[in-house]
């Protein structure tokens, strides 16, 4: 057993990633790892950014993250990464909230907006501002830690915020607030991925197979209508600090790809390319593609079917369907 290859997956608390906790604690990950003769350690990390940093510096072989962070942190940091599993996209799980009844997004003009700077919230805001013809110049961004977002919104200083669930739910539950924009207006642009180091994956396809297998088994359990599904979701709910109702409410605004086929289909749409183009432009304009980046093309991306974006000699982020397809075809 000692010479079994060992791998580590990092995850942090978020509605779309809670299945990893369940899969690990219920032995699903171990079952699939054993099947492919490897060891997988699943590690929870409180601080989302820290987990990606750890992955980027090589402490982990796999990590959960959004499409934007996959581009700006590991890929821009030269770590060739592969989006192994497309788990879900945010469909209202991220939102812009203003204080006051009956507000619209246009009212945000001139306000200070509290959000986690350079995160998907920031991206969502930029897309929202675009949609009403405003520029980022028209508002003022205040970087605010997600852990304190709810408390921050309760203070008089804060009048506008962009955040995600469950914080979003807590904030919209406060009296006298309006949710003026959310990710359901830009469906499919904020995508939650399980990312694996490309070199590791190439060397050990078993890792990809085991992870994909474990993931979709968990999906099957939780998506059902039976008691086992309720039990699974209750488990995930408590782990993320809420209850079943709260967790189900979050799921309602998340487009989960419960079957591999859905995910494969999503990965093959041309919209994915368009989304990543928005994302890289946003990232470049905010200076987070890395210091060496002369333009948005600096970091190349590859998509299923041989399509690419940016510098083909520097492809660092790969969207693939290989493993999800195997799952869809029942070949795992």
């Amino acid at each position: 057993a000692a010479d079994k290859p060992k791998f580590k997956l990092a995850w942090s608390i978020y509605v779309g990633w809670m299945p990893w906790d369940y899969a690990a604690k219920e032995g699903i990950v171990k079952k699939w790892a054993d099947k492919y003769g490897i060891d997988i350690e699943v590690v929870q990390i409180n601080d989302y950014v820290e987990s990606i940093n750890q992955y980027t510096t090589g402490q982990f072989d796999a990590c959960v993250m959004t499409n934007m962070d996959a581009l700006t942190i590991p890929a821009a940091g030269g770590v060739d990464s592969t989006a192994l599993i497309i788990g879900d996209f945010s469909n209202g799980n991220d939102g812009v909230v203003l204080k006051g009844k009956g507000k619209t997004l246009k009212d945000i003009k001139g306000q200070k907006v509290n959000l986690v700077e350079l995160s998907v919230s920031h991206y969502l805001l930029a897309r929202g501002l675009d949609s009403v013809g405003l520029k980022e110049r028209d508002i003022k961004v205040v970087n605010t830690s997600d852990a304190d977002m709810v408390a921050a919104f309760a203070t008089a200083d804060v009048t506008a915020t962009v955040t995600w669930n469950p914080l979003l739910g807590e904030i919209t539950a406060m009296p006298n607030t309006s949710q003026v924009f959310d990710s359901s207006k830009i469906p499919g642009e904020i995508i939650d991925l399980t990312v694996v180091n490309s070199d590791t994956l190439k060397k050990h396809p078993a890792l990809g197979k085991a992870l994909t297998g474990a993931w979709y088994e968990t999906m099957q359990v939780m998506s059902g209508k039976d008691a086992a599904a309720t039990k699974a979701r209750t488990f995930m709910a408590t782990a993320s600090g809420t209850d079943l109702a709260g967790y189900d409410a979050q799921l309602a605004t998340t487009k989960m790809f419960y079957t591999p086929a859905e995910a494969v289909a999503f990965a093959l749409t041309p919209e994915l390319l368009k989304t990543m183009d928005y994302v890289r432009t946003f990232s470049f304009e905010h200076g987070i593609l890395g210091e060496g980046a002369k333009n948005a093309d600096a970091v190349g991306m590859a998509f299923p079917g041989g399509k690419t974006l940016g510098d083909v000699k520097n492809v660092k982020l790969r969207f693939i369907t290989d493993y999800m397809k195997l799952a869809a075809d029942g070949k795992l």
Partner: protein
Amino acid sequence: MRRLINQRPNGVSAPLLGALPFILLLLVYIVASQARLAENPNDKLLPGLDSLVSAIQQVATEPDKRSGALILWRDTAASLVRLGTGVAISALAALLFGIATGALPYARATLSPFIAALALIPPLAILPVLFIVFGLGETSKIVLIVFGIAPFIMRDVAMRVGELPGEQIIKAQTLGANSWQLILRVITPQILPRLLDAVRLALGAAWLFLIAAEAIAAEDGLGYRIFLVRRYLAMDLILPYVAWITLLAFLTDWLLRVANAKLFPWYQGGARRS
């Protein structure tokens, strides 16, 4: 009428006076909480005393649904182990390096500028670096504590070594001590109680770093819990946790003070700093 500086409360009124600000604070809290709850019964910021009590009861006596553990005690144990390990390592390192730099001029010349520079680096700023070098397991949390308090204790110990009367060092040499014997029999035993004092001073910072570390990577611990539920503004859990941490901090300080008095009956310096 005596001058104010000469007027002393007696044995009965002194504790009463001391309790006054606490009682006032409690009253202010209750009034403010009731006002907010009257406006919005779901307000989470200042929960009523009953919610506080029930939240405590739940974490202290009801097994967690997910893990089956009693959360409060598991968190406390995890945090205390980390704190204890971190502080113990810091104290040991401080003893070694502090005595070396305090007693040996060559060690001082070599190490003390470096230790001084280390002590100035704000550990929170290099958190990411620490995590990357030491991984995300228990090690990094302990390292953050060590990094945060060890340079400070080291400098304190070195200073205390320097404060030992030069007469003692000379006297020991005229009694035939070599450097090693001098450190072993004259310096170290006299530094130990001062080390405990320095540790007491550093404990506040140690708690701080523990909480900061647990906020970033942990699966249990007092700081972890506070940050987890902070997202939901669950003040009914945060406030008792803060009070509990404060109580723990007080108890550890008190234990160290008592230990110092018992272990080193000849040592008087502690009183000055208590």
